[in-house]
C-alpha cells in the first residue's frame, strides 16, 4: 500500500466523520429546540420518571410494554391493536396473552426489529439492564420510563400513558370512576363502629410489612382498617417494604384482628398454614379466630385499576358479615347464574381468584381463568364468576371449543342441589327421604344427599329438578347449610 492510497483513505474517513458530525449536530439542535422553546409542533411533551424529556408529534401507534402494570393500564385506557408487544410476565388482561412477548433480558435487536415507536419500561429495568436500554435508544427508539412510587402519583402516571397514546379522555373518565369508587368504599367503611386492627405482611423473610404511604397501607385505611404497623420504616429509601419483625408482631398479637398476607411475588408473605405454624403465632388473635387472609399483590400493591378490587377484598376480610351479606338476594323471583356466583363466593367469604404470572404456564383440564367467551373482564361480576367456577362451586361449559358460563341462565333446583353439595363436605344421613322422581334427576346421588340433609324439600315427594328457584329458596338453603356445618 503506498502513501498516496493511505492518505486517500484517511481523507475518506475524515469526510465520513464530518458528515456524521454535521448530521448529529442537526439532530441535536432539533432536541434542543424541543427542550428549549416549545413551538407547539409537539402535541406530546412531558418528562418521564427518569427525567427524560419525551416529545412526540403524534400518539404512539406501535407500543411495546415491558412492565405488566403498563400493559394492563394500556388495555384499560382502551388500547389493543397499538400494543404490539408485552413483557414476559404480562398476563392481565387475558388479551395480553395473545401479544408477542419481548424479554429485556434477551437480545434488544428483537425489539428493534419490531419497529415500535415507543418502548415502555420502568426504572427497575433501566437499573437492571442499562445496556439493553442504551441499545434501543441508540437505534432511535423512544424509550419511556414510568413508575409511580406512591399512590399519590398514580393519576399523573396514568395521564402520561394517556398522553403518549392519545387516550386522555378515556383515562380521565377511568380515573374519575376509580376515585369515586374508592371514595364510596371509604364513606361506607369510615362509620364502622368497631374498626378492625390489621397486620399486613409483605414478606415472610424477616416478617416485613409495608410503609404507611404505600398503596397497600392506603387500601387498609380506605377499607376501614387500622394498620397495626403504621410506624414501620422502609427497608430502603423509596421502598414500600418496611421492617417489622416477629417480636413486634407478637407484641401486638392481642390487637391483630385480621392478618393479611400479600402473595404472588418472590419473597412474598406466607400462606395461611405457614403463618399459623410459626413459633408463637398461634397466640395472635387473627390466627386464633381463623382470620388470616391472603391477597395477590397485583390487586393491592401494583399501580393499576384493579387496585379498587384489592380495597373491596379488604372490606370483605375486615367486615365479612356486613359486606358479604347475601340476604338482599332473598327478594329475587329467580336467580341467574351470574347472581348465584356472587351469592356462593360471598357465602363462603372466598377471596376472589387473581392469577399469578405463572398461572398460564400450566394447562388446565377444567376452566382456565379469563377464557369465558360470554364473561369478559369488564363484566360487573367477572371476579365472582371466575372465583365460583375455579373454586368448584359452579360448573362451566364447553361449546364448540369455547368456554361458556351462561351468566343469564336461571338456576334450577337440580343445579342448586349441586352447588350446595360443592359448598361444603356433606355426609349422607342414615335416614333416606323417598324422592319419587329421583330417576329423572341427572345428579341423583347429590340430590338425594342434599334432600336427606333437609337442605331442600320435596313437593309431594317430587324433587322437580327443572323447576327454577327463587332468591328466598337459595338464601334459606344456605342458612340451613351454615347451621349444618
Amino acid at each position, binding site marked *: 500500500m503506498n502513501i498516496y492510497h493511505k492518505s486517500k483513505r484517511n481523507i475518506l474517513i475524515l469526510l465520513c466523520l464530518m458528515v456524521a458530525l454535521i448530521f448529529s449536530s442537526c439532530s441535536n439542535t432539533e432536541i434542543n429546540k424541543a427542550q428549549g422553546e416549545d413551538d407547539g409542533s409537539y402535541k406530546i411533551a412531558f418528562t418521564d420518571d427518569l427525567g427524560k424529556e419525551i416529545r412526540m408529534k403524534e400518539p404512539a401507534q406501535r407500543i411495546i410494554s415491558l412492565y405488566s402494570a403498563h400493559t394492563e393500564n394500556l388495555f384499560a385506557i382502551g388500547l389493543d391493536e397499538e400494543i404490539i408487544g408485552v413483557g414476559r410476565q404480562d398476563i392481565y388482561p387475558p388479551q395480553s396473552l395473545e401479544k408477542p412477548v419481548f424479554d429485556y433480558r434477551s437480545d434488544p435487536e428483537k425489539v428493534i426489529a419490531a419497529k415500535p415507536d415507543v418502548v415502555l419500561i420502568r426504572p427497575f429495568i433501566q437499573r437492571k439492564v442499562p445496556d439493553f436500554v442504551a441499545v434501543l435508544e441508540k437505534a432511535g427508539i423512544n424509550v419511556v420510563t414510568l413508575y409511580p412510587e406512591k399512590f399519590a402519583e398514580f393519576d399523573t402516571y396514568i395521564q402520561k400513558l394517556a398522553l403518549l397514546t392519545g387516550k386522555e379522555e378515556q383515562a380521565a373518565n377511568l380515573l374519575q370512576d376509580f376515585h369515586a369508587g374508592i371514595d364510596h368504599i371509604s364513606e361506607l367503611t369510615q362509620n364502622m363502629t368497631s374498626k378492625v386492627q390489621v397486620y399486613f405482611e409483605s414478606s415472610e423473610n424477616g416478617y416485613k410489612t409495608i410503609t404507611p404511604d404505600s398503596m397497600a397501607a392506603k387500601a387498609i385505611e380506605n377499607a376501614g382498617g387500622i394498620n397495626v404497623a403504621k410506624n414501620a420504616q422502609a427497608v430502603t429509601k423509596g421502598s414500600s417494604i418496611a421492617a417489622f419483625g416477629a417480636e413486634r408482631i407478637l407484641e401486638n398479637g392481642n390487637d391483630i384482628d385480621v392478618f393479611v398476607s400479600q402473595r404472588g411475588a418472590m419473597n412474598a408473605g406466607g400462606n395461611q*398454614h405457614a403463618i399459623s405454624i410459626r413459633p408463637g403465632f398461634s397466640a395472635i388473635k387473627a390466627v386464633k379466630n381463623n382470620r388470616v387472609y391472603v391477597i395477590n399483590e397485583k390487586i393491592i400493591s401494583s399501580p393499576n385499576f384493579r387496585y379498587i378490587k384489592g380495597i373491596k377484598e379488604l372490606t370483605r376480610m375486615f367486615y365479612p358479615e356486613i359486606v358479604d351479606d347475601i340476604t338482599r338476594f332473598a327478594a329475587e323471583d329467580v336467580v341467574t347464574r351470574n347472581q348465584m356466583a356472587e351469592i356462593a363466593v360471598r357465602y363462603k367469604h372466598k377471596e376472589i381468584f387473581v392469577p399469578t404470572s405463572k398461572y398460564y404456564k400450566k394447562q388446565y383440564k377444567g376452566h382456565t381463568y379469563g377464557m369465558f367467551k360470554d364473561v369478559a373482564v369488564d363484566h360487573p361480576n367477572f371476579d365472582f364468576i371466575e372465583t365460583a367456577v375455579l373454586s*368448584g362451586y359452579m360448573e362451566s361449559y364447553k361449546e364448540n371449543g369455547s368456554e361458556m358460563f351462561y351468566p343469564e341462565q336461571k338456576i334450577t333446583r337440580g343445579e342448586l342441589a349441586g352447588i350446595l353439595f360443592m359448598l361444603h363436605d356433606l355426609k349422607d344421613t342414615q335416614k333416606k327421604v323417598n324422592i319419587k322422581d329421583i330417576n329423572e334427576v341427572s345428579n341423583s346421588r*347429590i340430590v338425594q344427599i342434599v334432600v336427606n340433609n333437609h337442605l331442600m324439600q320435596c313437593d309431594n315427594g317430587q324433587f322437580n329438578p327443572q323447576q327454577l328457584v327463587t332468591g328466598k329458596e337459595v338464601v334459606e338453603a344456605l342458612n340451613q347449610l351454615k347451621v349444618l356445618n
Partner: protein
Amino acid sequence: MKSKITLLSLVLSLMLMVVSLVGCTQETSGEVAKDPNQKGILVVSFGTSYADTREVTIEAVENEIKDAFKDYETRRAFTSDIIIKKLKDRDGIEIDTVKQGLQKMKDDGFSEVIVQPLHVINGAEYTDVVQIASEFKSSFDKFNIGSPLLTSVEDYKAVVNALKTQLPELKDNEAVAFMGHGTHHPANSAYACFQYALEDMDVKNVFMGTVEGYPDLDNVIEKLNDNHIETVTLMPFMLVAGDHANNDMAGDEEDAWKSILKKNGFVVNTYIHGLGENKAIQELYVAHTKAAIEDNGEEE
C-alpha cells in the same frame, strides 16, 4: 542468545517446581485421615418447608433410623434446592444438598457412609441421588445407597401390610383412594404394580391414582363406579403431606381430587397424613437402611 534461553528455561522449571510443590502440600493438607469408628447415615428426602409435617414425617423417620443404628451418626439432606433456599432465607435453617452432605462427611473423616433415600419409587429423583452420591464412592472405605420404599416384590407386600394399619374399616360402598405422585420416568409402573399387590393380598376397595402419571384420577373414578362406591377417603401416597396433599388432593379448588370426586357425586373424606407418619412405613425405611449397612458388595 543461547545462554539467555537456558536461563529462561531454568527459571521456568524452578517456577514449575514451586507450583507443583505447593500443589502437593495443598493436597496433603486437604486429605482428612479417615476414622474407622466414624460411621454415618445420610437420610435424603425431597424436603418440605412446613415445620409441622416435617417433624412428623421426615424427622420421625430420621429418628427411627437414628435409634436403630446408634453406632452411626445420622444426618439430613434434601434434594429440593427451592426448599433449601426457602428454609435458609425464611427460617435461617441450613440444610445440605446430597453433595454438600457427603462432602462434609468426607471432610469429617467418615470411613463408612450409608445414603438412605426416603423416596417412594426408583424414579428420576432417586436416580439423581444415586448419580450424585456415586461420585463419593471412593471417598469412604464402605459406601452404600439404600433402596426406595417400593423396590423388591417383598417391599410391595410389606407396604400393603403397612398401609393396612392406616386403612379404615370399609363397607362395600366405601373406598380409599391413594394419591401417588406419578412420573414420566419408567418407574411410574410401580403404582400399577402396587394396585396389583393390593388386589393380590385381598385388600378390597383400595385404589391407587397419581397426580402426574398413570393411573390417574379418571382411572380411579372408573374403578369407584365399577365397584358401586359412594364414599371415598383420600390419602396421600407420599412421604409428606405437603402441597400436593393439601391442594391437589384435599383442596377446594376446581381441579383438586376432592372437588372432582364430589362433582361425580361421591361423598369425600380426607386423610392428610404423609406415609412418613405411618409407624410401619418408618420401620420399612429402617429395614432398607439395615440392608444397605449389611450389604458388603458380595455377589450372591
